[in-house]
């Protein structure tokens, strides 16, 4: 008699566990070799999650941190508590804030940043977190290539040299710029780059062409120069912005993007881009 309820309870527990295990299988971490890029709706800020479907993730920036953990929780299976690489394009709060939380709640193998120093509390917090955790720290510079499990590669296009001992107050113009390449598919991720950095890139002669462009600096009017846009010549543009007092995204920028499929996190929420290297699917 005494054993019956115990057995029932164990069965219930097992059934529930079973449900969760299968749910995570259907969550899509299934090793199909597709590349998934998710522009997370983190309010006014940037956060881009790249997933290779083999359990490897690269997170570029983390927004201000209000909901980044919630977002990651949504897209990562519950048993995956490791983000293989975290990249900080530049140390402004709307990119850095969320990474503080990410570094506390996930195991991060490699942390990539430009080495630029900023006199702010959040930057101090970042440095002490980096000291505390045993992770590999890489200073980004041109020519570095980060390889994902399915053959996708993240190329560092800028800065040309380490910015470790460089001093500036214009952090946006020294953002790390990367290009994600997967077979025929290319995505350009220019952080908060404004006109000055765009001009530098144009002059450097680097191949900027891409199928997808993340619009620089949340669609600021001082970003996304027509010449730059012509050179990149994207089919899809993504604007990562939220409620703000700067007027992002600016109508001028939206005007320039009229002929390009433009997706906005502030109106559409998270934007999921899925590709096999040839074809591109947007949304679920």
């Amino acid at each position: 008699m005494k054993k019956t309820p115990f057995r029932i309870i164990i069965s219930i527990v097992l059934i529930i566990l079973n449900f969760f295990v299968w749910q995570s299988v259907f969550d899509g971490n299934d090793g199909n070799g597709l590349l998934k890029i998710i522009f997370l709706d983190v309010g006014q800020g940037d956060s881009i999650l790249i997933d290779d479907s083999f359990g490897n993730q690269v997170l570029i920036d983390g927004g201000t941190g209000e909901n980044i953990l919630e977002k990651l929780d949504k897209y990562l299976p519950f048993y995956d508590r490791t983000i293989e690489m975290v990249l900080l394009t530049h140390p402004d709060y709307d990119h850095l804030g969320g990474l503080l939380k990410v570094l506390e709640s996930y195991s991060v193998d490699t942390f990539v940043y430009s080495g630029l120093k900023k006199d702010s509390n959040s930057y101090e917090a970042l440095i002490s977190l980096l000291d505390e955790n045993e992770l590999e720290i890489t200073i980004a510079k041109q020519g570095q290539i980060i390889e994902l499990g399915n053959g996708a590669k993240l190329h560092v296009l800028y800065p040309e040299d380490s910015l470790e001992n460089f001093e500036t107050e214009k952090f946006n113009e020294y953002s790390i710029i990367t290009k994600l390449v997967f077979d025929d598919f290319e995505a350009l991720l220019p952080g908060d780059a404004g006109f000055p950095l765009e001009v530098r890139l144009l002059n450097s002669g680097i191949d900027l062409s891409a199928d997808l462009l993340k619009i620089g600096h949340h669609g600021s009017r001082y970003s996304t120069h027509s010449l730059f846009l012509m050179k990149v010549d994207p089919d899809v543009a993504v604007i990562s912005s939220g409620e703000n007092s700067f007027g992002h995204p600016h109508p001028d920028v939206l005007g320039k993007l009229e002929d390009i499929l433009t997706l906005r996190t502030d109106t559409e929420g998270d934007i999921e881009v899925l590709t096999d290297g040839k074809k591109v699917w947007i949304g679920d």
Partner: protein
Amino acid sequence: MGLWFNVDLSWLLLFTGLGLLSFFIYIFKRKFLFLLVGVFLLAMSMGAWWAEVRTDKLNSLYGKELSKEIEFEARVVSEKETRAKYSRYVVEVGDDRVLLSADKGAIYKYGDVLTITGTLEIPSEIDDFDYQGYLAKDDIYYQVRFPQIGLKEDSPEKLINFAYNTKTKIRKRITRNFSEKEAIFLKSIILGDKGLIGEEFRSKLSRSGTSHIVAISGLHLSVFAIFIFGGLLSAGLWRKHASVVTIIFLILFAIFIGFKASLVRAVFMASLMLISLILGKIFQGEKVLVYAAFLMLVFNPLLLRYDVGFQMSFLAVLGIFLLKPIFDHILGKKLKLPQILSDILTVTISAQIFTLPIIVYNFGTFSLVAPVVNFFVLLILPFVLGLGFLWALLAAFINPYFLALILGPLLRGILNFIYWTGSFKWSAIEITDNISLFLFIIYYAFLALVIILWKRYYKKHLTPLALWQVWQYEKDTI
């Protein structure tokens, strides 16, 4: 006199006089009613008098130096309590306790001596909430907000420091191994961290009637105690020895968690029960409960008035002792559920009925789904707690990843269930009007009547709280 309770001295004297009078009548007439009234009135006036004296004694030091910036030394006597935008500590200056608000990042530990430069204030009233009284129950009569703080001396308290460091380690591991919501939930149920619980989760807990699970209390302690007690018994210890060792473990556990009021109460209760087991006396729950409450009120009479947790857990346990047998009788035969399941159901209903007025008065939310939700949550929570304690124990040394793989989904399951059941419009009724004292009295008088009538008819001995029945069972069989 009269700073906190505003009791008029003449009323106090009148009550004392009347109490003594009916006591004397009892001596001559031997009518039980007079004894009851006499004890009641005397206890009431003695309690009020003691509350006043104790408050006056404690509240004497810094009175003159208010509203001026001063420098003073203080010893930290609480753990860091993290809030959304700041952190809180309780510090002791001589005999006085002061509530210290500091930056979120500030890290001090129990026993640290701080040099504080700031302005002492008397806690202000927040809307209609009696913040002064609320803090006074913890002997706090002053606060100092965001002063300059310097660390003068590291804590000499080795044991508490060890506990603190271990907990910090466990907390970090929890953050790293569970998703945000799960981590906050797990920290609250096994370490008693409540400050991190957000507005949304708080409301869902309250609407689904499960707020009690995130405060470390008897429920959590009983799981812990049963693990240890059961473990010791199966290891071949005698019952008496196992009881003693269990009490020691319970006290260590309270030190480890950091003397949260609800936990101290639960440890106290459990220890009394275990002691009665050692002494071989048949354990009568409601009596032990009354002794425990009496002793705690002697130490701190303000608990009765200002500590909602005290009121709630006292009434909940009393409700379980008094009403559960009735429900067992009514439902037990009809439902034909296994013993454990029907116990959970009757425990939940009894506790809810007894605490209903307090819940409505303090929180304005009355959960309609509580019995059903609690039935399922309490079914699985002991497993989760057991796994959680085991995980935390291991996490102090290694990273028990595989255990986290089981624990994570269980936590998520409970969370989803609480969010789901708390999200319906009809999950709870919000009551904004104040309920009158008259209704309070009517309500409890009615309950008392039901219980007395039932006892008359059935004259059964009341069975104790379901979770403690393990021990009762032990006793009966040996």
